[in-house]
């Protein structure tokens, strides 16, 4: 695809025209320059209290000064959310590594791994929940152009967040599944052990029955206790993971309202342009209507009625004095 860059030619003309323009501008610059920039800053401060424009000007420099504005406050919010999402992504990578280690067969009881998993899972869930709350705050009610930008930023972050949550839950589900498989495997081992013992008792029947029975019972009891402990721990873990799954499901439901359905009319640029134009118009009309009703409003009526009543009472009082 062919393109043509006209910037060099454009710059050439701009420089040429600037040098032609300068003599007329610099004289008014000394007088009008600084004050006009201050005016501009003051005016914009009055209009948009959330903006903090700085103006840098250089009276000695003949080139035009630029007004650099600081971005509005909500941009910080969106950046915070972006940073959170990055952190969450990093932690998820860590988490999958720990998952792998925990699922590998090991001699130790793997307590540190479970602990690490719990911690990481909690952290990630918290990050996602916090991001979602901040995201909800990003919306604004004033129909202005700025609000369109905010809404679009919100949408974009919402779809990122949704994808991340889905990924996280998929990984948790995988881990859960494999954990369950492992648990069944381990439960099988003590059972197998008990069976073995049972067959052995069957073979040693005469004489030392009772003693051996008691012995096996003890052995069996300790095995049972151990497997019970195992099961309880596993249950706890699983229920924790399930809880976080449910929490994330809730987040996803909230987010899916914000995310655009791809391929539908809402995803079309021309449809959104029309809509913005009509909602801004609508908003303006509503404001006008509100102004009108306020003017006509009940308060004014009440106040006037009261004042009239006061006057009437005063007149009556005076009359009473005169007559009596």
């Amino acid at each position, binding site marked *: 695809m*062919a393109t043509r860059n006209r*910037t060099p030619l454009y710059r050439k003309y701009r420089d040429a025209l600037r040098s032609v323009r300068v003599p007329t501008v610099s004289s008014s610059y000394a007088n009008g320059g600084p004050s006009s920039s201050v005016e501009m800053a003051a005016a914009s401060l009055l209009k948009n209290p959330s903006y903090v424009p700085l103006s840098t000007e250089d009276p000695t420099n003949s080139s035009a000064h*630029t007004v650099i*504005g600081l971005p509005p406050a909500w941009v910080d919010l969106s950046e915070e959310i972006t940073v959170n999402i990055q952190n969450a992504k990093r932690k998820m990578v860590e988490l999958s590594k720990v998952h792998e280690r925990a699922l590998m067969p090991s001699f130790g009881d793997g307590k540190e791994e479970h602990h690490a998993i719990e911690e990481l899972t909690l952290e990630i869930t918290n990050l996602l929940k916090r991001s979602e709350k901040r995201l909800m705050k990003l919306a604004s009610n004033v129909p202005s152009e700025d609000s369109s930008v905010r809404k679009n*930023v919100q949408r974009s972050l919402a779809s990122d967040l949704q994808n991340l949550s889905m990924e996280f839950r998929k990984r948790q589900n995988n881990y859960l599944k494999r954990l369950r498989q492992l648990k069944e495997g381990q439960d099988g081992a003590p059972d197998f052990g008990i069976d073995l013992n049972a067959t052995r008792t069957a073979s040693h029947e005469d004489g030392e029955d009772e003693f051996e029975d008691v012995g096996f019972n003890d052995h069996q009891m300790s095995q049972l206790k151990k497997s019970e402990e195992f099961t309880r721990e596993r249950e706890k873990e699983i229920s924790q993971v399930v809880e976080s799954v449910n929490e994330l499901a809730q987040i996803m439901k909230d987010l899916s309202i914000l995310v655009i359905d791809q*391929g539908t*009319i809402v995803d079309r*640029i*021309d449809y*959104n342009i029309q809509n913005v134009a009509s909602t801004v118009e609508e908003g303006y009309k509503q404001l006008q209507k509100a102004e009108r009703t306020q003017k006509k409003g009940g308060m004014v009526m009440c106040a006037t009625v009261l004042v009239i009543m006061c006057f009437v009472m005063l007149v009556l009082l005076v009359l009473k004095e005169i007559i009596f």
Partner: protein
Amino acid sequence: MTLVSVVRDYIDRMLQDISGMKVLILDPLTVSIVSVVYSQSDLLKKEVFLVETVDNMSKESMSHLKAVYFLRPSSDNIQKLRRQLAAPRFAEYHLFFSNILKIPQIQVLADSDEQEVVKQVQEFYADFCAIDPYHFTLNINANHVYMLPTVADPHSSQIFCDRTVDGIAAVFLALKKRPVIRYQRTSDIAKRIAQETAKLMYEQESGLFDFRRTENSPLLLVIDRRDDPVTPLLNQWTYQAMVHELIGIEDNKVDLRNIGKVPKDQQEVVLSSVQDDFFKANMYENFGDLGMNIKRMVDDFQQIAKSNQHIQTIEDMAKFVNNYPEYRRMHGNVSKHVTLVTEMSRIVDERKLMLVSQTEQDLACNSGQAAALEVVSNLLNNESVSDIDRLRLILLYALRYEKDSPVHLMQLCNKLSRTAKYKPGLVQFLLKQAGVDKRTGDLYGNRDLLNIARNMARGLKGAENVYTQHQPLLLQTMESIMKGRLRDVDYPLVGNHFQQGRPQEVVIFIVGGTTYEEARTVALHNAANPGTRFFLGGSVVLNSKRFLKDLEEVQRISKSTSV
């Protein structure tokens, strides 16, 4: 490399090198150009958080945003841009124009850029609306101008020609080719457009168009709509063409608000072959096959919906929540297609289109004047046939049998004059514009001995589907080009161009508008013959309503100028 992918690449390149939050500013024409290939979510991924039009600008200053302008280089836009550069609202300005800038325009912009906020000025030649991979349109409003002689309204004719030449040039710049140009001899406007395009490509901006020469030179063929007036008048039975004919598609959007009772979220829908897989697979299917495929899709969807209702374990719940976005999208898609097909079925029943269309196809494809006369008379007497359908039948009859029996034609016209919508003299006017004397191509296949034989063979074989037996004249033209047998006498070359070998890339531009039936022919032909690629473009995309509107408009103008 298709038209859609080329325009997408242009937009990608515009946005990729600029970091930070951006605002995209378009003019009413570039809004269409961008909307058909780029979605809102694509823009969000590129950090474009606001889209505005250049006329509808407020004074709110947003200096944390960088502005990307994508406009047509019209004098109107340059003036608006001037004012905005003099009082800049954004931190940086990146200007992209969809066609060639003139030097004075660059100077005007440079002059108004006192604050030096403009960081780049580029020409990115996406000046056409790429509605399908091999089909583009220019969406020209005053399309009827092509039927007027230049002297009637020289100013409008010039605007029309300029826009067309700009659009065609942009297509070739996007494809990086410089073609050999041929035009239809009998059409003045086609000749004019061909010559002006040649001047632009070979003289005025020859450096810009100086691309690597290939063995087989590409071809641009400029033809006139009036050479095939039958195709836009026919009723259509393949999905995309049918939706446009019965309801109307604009920039791949269908507006169902005035049609009937539709659910609220289906009032405006998008039919894009690039975004919708079901549509891509079915856009050229006839109505019967389409119905079957939709039924299959609905059944599949109902299966999934049923399984979603049986949620018993936490696992099921998790799975449901996981698959919810996918499920919702599928639901929307199924709704959309079902709504469209339902509406179209209703319209077909209401207007008795199956009956009418059979006659239309016979008029277009088979001969037999007496039989045709009888059937048409019967249909005209039938009260349930709507006015516009009656008009179309007569126009088709007139185009075919204009020389055979003028008396009968007069009788039919008299019958028509009872209807309110008919503007008297329209039939004669159409014959004057597009009658057999004015046409170059062999529309009914009865001039050339070979064509007559081919027609007879086809008639004997019988049509697979009587409703889709019509093949537009364009197919014959394409086949002639492929075989290298396009007659020089009918389609001469411009100037001293020379066609090297057989062209492998051909752009056919129909002045006056294309139809979706022709776009279908081109797409199917491209799929069957991968050696040669055809691109089709026009000033608008026609359906019978639009074609008749243009015709009536020109008739009104000629009446007023002659009186």
